[in-house]
């Protein structure tokens, strides 16, 4: 009986909140009505990403560093109760002249390969672990690619906090088929488990480049692949919202139907776990000097239920004015429940939840540090 109760408790949803000052967890009840904040863990560490392994019910990885110490990965095999540091964290080849500043993105490997993980770093690097995150090895097909520097620019270029490799997507039908996103760089595809890569950016606008239709050099902020329809990809880009249906090669702009006063700029894009036509974005002000806050100080989530043909504003429960939220690319997610819960978190330390697919929102945590990511576990 005690074991059954323990198992039931462990199945309840937890949100993993990675912040600039450590890791917190939010635990809820079966109805997702009340939330309890637990933590911090790794207080003082910059935790860029923390995710649970969807292939088991116990493993969690966290990518961390401090302001002065080098980057590392922490691993838990008991849902975050105890942690062990990676024996060999992601690091570029000695002699390459490149140095990992921080691991920015973590993705569990294919379901057929338990213990496999991928990590994306800043500056842009791709790493793989085959032992549950204990040791990490360079994916040389990308890191040593002769075109890598042309694709990505220099290690000091790119976004204010360093150029990043993110959005590591593994096709659930084929472990060797992968996508990555890079700012700066664009979207790239591999069909041989990372041995070779090619740009996949046709249709994306890069209006910040001399050639807006360049083959690479684009700035995807977040790319998602639908688990139930893996040929469907969505992207929140520096220049708008896009969709790609494979085997097509052309991204299609979905941002034109967003209200002009809001625009189509943002960091995250979140997909419904079962319906490939439903997605959420969190628009931000990308005008002039890019304030990167909610347009007009009026935060709102926008949802499409028809693959991006039209959008509905979802702001019930959110502040109506003078709320200047910034939501980073990993700081918005959905759970697998019915109806789907949607969550976002702000750089001002608030976590907001909707348990009705975005129709209404409630603040479930506040006063946390600057939040980088929120993931359901």
């Amino acid at each position: 009986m005690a074991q059954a109760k323990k198992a039931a408790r462990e199945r309840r949803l937890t949100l993993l909140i990675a912040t600039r000052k450590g890791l917190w967890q939010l635990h809820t009840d079966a109805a997702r009505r009340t939330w309890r904040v637990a933590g911090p863990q790794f207080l003082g560490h910059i935790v860029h990403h923390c995710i649970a392994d969807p292939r088991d019910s116990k493993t969690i990885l966290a990518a961390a560093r401090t302001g002065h110490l080098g980057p590392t990965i922490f691993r838990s095999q008991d849902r975050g109760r105890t942690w062990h540091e990676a024996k060999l964290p992601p690091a570029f080849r000695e002699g390459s002249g490149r140095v990992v500043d921080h691991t920015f993105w973590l993705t569990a490997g294919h379901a057929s390969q338990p213990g496999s993980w991928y990590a994306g770093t800043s500056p842009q690097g791709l790493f793989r672990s085959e032992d549950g995150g204990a040791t990490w090895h360079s994916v040389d097909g990308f890191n040593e690619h002769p075109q890598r520097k042309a694709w990505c620019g220099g290690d000091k270029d790119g976004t204010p906090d360093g150029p990043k490799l993110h959005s590591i997507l593994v096709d659930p039908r084929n472990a060797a088929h992968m996508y990555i996103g890079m700012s700066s760089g664009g979207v790239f595809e591999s069909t041989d488990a990372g041995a070779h890569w090619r740009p996949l950016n046709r249709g994306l606008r890069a209006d910040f480049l001399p050639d807006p239709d360049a083959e690479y050099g684009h700035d995807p902020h977040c790319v998602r692949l639908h688990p139930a329809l893996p040929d469907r990809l969505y992207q929140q880009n520096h220049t708008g919202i896009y969709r790609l249906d494979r085997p097509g090669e052309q991204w299609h702009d979905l941002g034109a139907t967003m209200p002009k006063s809001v625009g189509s700029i943002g960091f995250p894009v979140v997909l419904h776990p079962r319906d490939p036509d439903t997605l959420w974005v969190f628009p931000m002000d990308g005008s002039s000097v890019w304030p990167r806050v909610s347009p007009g100080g009026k935060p709102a989530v926008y949802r499409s239920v028809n693959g991006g043909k039209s959008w509905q504003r979802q702001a019930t429960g959110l502040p109506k004015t003078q709320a200047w939220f910034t939501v980073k690319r990993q700081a918005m997610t959905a759970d697998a429940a019915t109806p789907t819960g949607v969550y976002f978190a702000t750089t001002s330390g608030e976590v907001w939840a909707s348990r009705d697919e975005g129709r209404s929102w409630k603040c479930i945590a506040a006063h946390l540090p600057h939040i980088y990511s929120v993931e359901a576990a």
Partner: protein
Amino acid sequence: MLIPTPLRSYTADAAVVAADGATLAGILADLDRRYPGLRFRVIDEQGDIRRHIKFFINGAQAANLEPALHDADEVMIVCALSGG
């Protein structure tokens, strides 16, 4: 060796530990054998001292990992704690 607070999670909170080696590089290798993972937090994959880390040998700052060491030399690791 004098260990700063950010690294004491590796040394079971010990502020002073012993390490053997003929050079600063040598004692860091020994330190990593005793406390796995510590070296990579202060030395990057190209063998360079990380940006906010400094080493002092008997009070004098080391520019790199090459200086020779002798019995009873005191090595201090300093983390530049700054920013918010």
